[in-house]
């Protein structure tokens, strides 16, 4: 029996296996890119309803960055916003019959967490230089350096494990209920799964902002969700 957690290759590009998660990711990339081109093709100063919705999305991302990181949002908008949009759309892919969310596979979540890990280093060095970034490991005391190093790695793991666990459990639950109860019974669970998918996208983006903010050296704003920080180990 094949493990449901395993990624089955659809085909191979040379030695590279192309899994359903990768293919779905490509589809999401294509859809988001084409949608972006269509949306931004006729931007006007007097916005239409569609343009207003997307401007609201940008403004919301900017506001979240500003309130969570207490920095101008421009350098982080594309990274944080794309993480949120991609995870959000990926989580909701399960609404399409036959499509499995890429975030239900460990590799995709690990890739996202790896990007956050690298982004923390990049933005930290860019903000305070290499020395300034390394000094952040010595706060509040140099004694904390080993623990901070371990924390920077473990929090990355917790980041993708949390996302993977939530999405994967939702997919499993729906699949099990669907196999037991028929066609319409899983609908409430699917709605719950959509809610969980949206919340997980938000949590992932906010945690990315918090980690980057810690590396950049900005003070932790009061609006940062403290519950997310204390539940770093929980799925």
């Amino acid at each position, binding site marked *: 029996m094949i*493990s449901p*957690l*395993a*990624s089955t290759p659809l085909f191979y590009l040379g*030695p*590279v*296996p*192309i*899994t359903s*998660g*990768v293919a779905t*990711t*490509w589809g*999401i*990339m294509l859809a*988001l*890119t084409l949608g*972006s*081109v269509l*949306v*931004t093709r006729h*931007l*006007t*100063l007097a*916005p239409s309803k569609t*343009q207003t919705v*997307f*401007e609201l*999305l*940008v*403004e919301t991302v*900017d506001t979240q960055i500003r309130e969570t990181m207490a920095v101008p949002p*421009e350098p982080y*908008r*594309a*990274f944080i*916003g*794309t*993480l949120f*949009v*991609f995870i959000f759309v990926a989580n909701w892919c399960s609404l399409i019959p036959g499509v499995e969310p*890429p975030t239900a*596979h*460990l*590799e*995709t979540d*690990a*890739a*996202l967490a*790896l*990007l956050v890990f690298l982004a923390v280093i990049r933005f930290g060095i860019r903000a305070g230089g290499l020395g300034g970034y390394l000094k952040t490991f010595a706060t509040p005391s140099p004694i904390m350096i080993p623990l901070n190093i371990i924390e920077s790695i473990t929090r990355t793991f917790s980041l993708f494990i949390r996302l993977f666990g939530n999405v994967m459990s939702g997919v499993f639950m729906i699949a099990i209920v669907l196999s037991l109860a028929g066609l319409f019974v899983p609908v409430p669970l699917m709605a719950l799964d959509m809610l969980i998918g949206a919340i997980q996208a938000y949590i992932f983006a906010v945690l990315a902002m918090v980690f980057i903010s810690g590396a950049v050296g900005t003070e932790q704003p009061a609006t940062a969700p403290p519950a997310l920080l204390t539940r770093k180990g929980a799925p």
Partner: protein
Amino acid sequence: MSFDWWTLSLQTINVIVLIWLLQRFFWRPVASIIAERRALADKTLADIKAESSKAAADLADIAATRAGFAAERAAILTAARADAAKSRAAQLAEAATQAAALEATAKARIAAEGDADAKAWGQRSADLGVDIARRLAARLDGPQVRAVFLDWLVAAIAALPEATRQAARAKTIPFDAVSATALDPAEQAHASEAIGAAFGGAVAVTYSIDPALIAGLELRGDHLIVGNSWQADLLKIQAELQHDRHG
């Protein structure tokens, strides 16, 4: 459970590419249009503030101008009053000058007219007096009066210088003795004798009548006239009266 590193790598690359694509086609354009609209709104607000400030400044200018109007009005009124007072004083002075000139002219004209009237009345008075005297004297003509006039003529001849009387004696052309009324032969003979005596020698005398003499006896020659009549006296009196009036 398995973990595919190829998939991890592909998904990492995919997300990086997606970040770049969305940055290129979504985040940047939408953020740009938002920033552009915000800048436009800020500019509009700034323009409105500037317009508001300008309007306030214009209002202040208008208020200042209105205040200036009041001051200018007061100044114009003061200047106009001063000009009016000056003009009135000048007109009054000119009117006084003209009135004085008119008064002087009128006085002079009245004086001249008074003089002319007085002269005319004097002339008429003299003429009236002479006329009255002429009419009165005309009633006095008679032998006694003619005798008196002969005596006055003889006395006037006697009063002449000797050279005059001598030249008269030497003349061959006779003197003309003019009377207002005709002398009878006796009176003519007596008169010729008396005149000759007065000249100191015999002189030829003819007699003629001139009623204009009123009364009297005059002796008229080429170079000598002895006036001796009421007419001559009245003309003399009239001339003296006119001379006195003019003087």
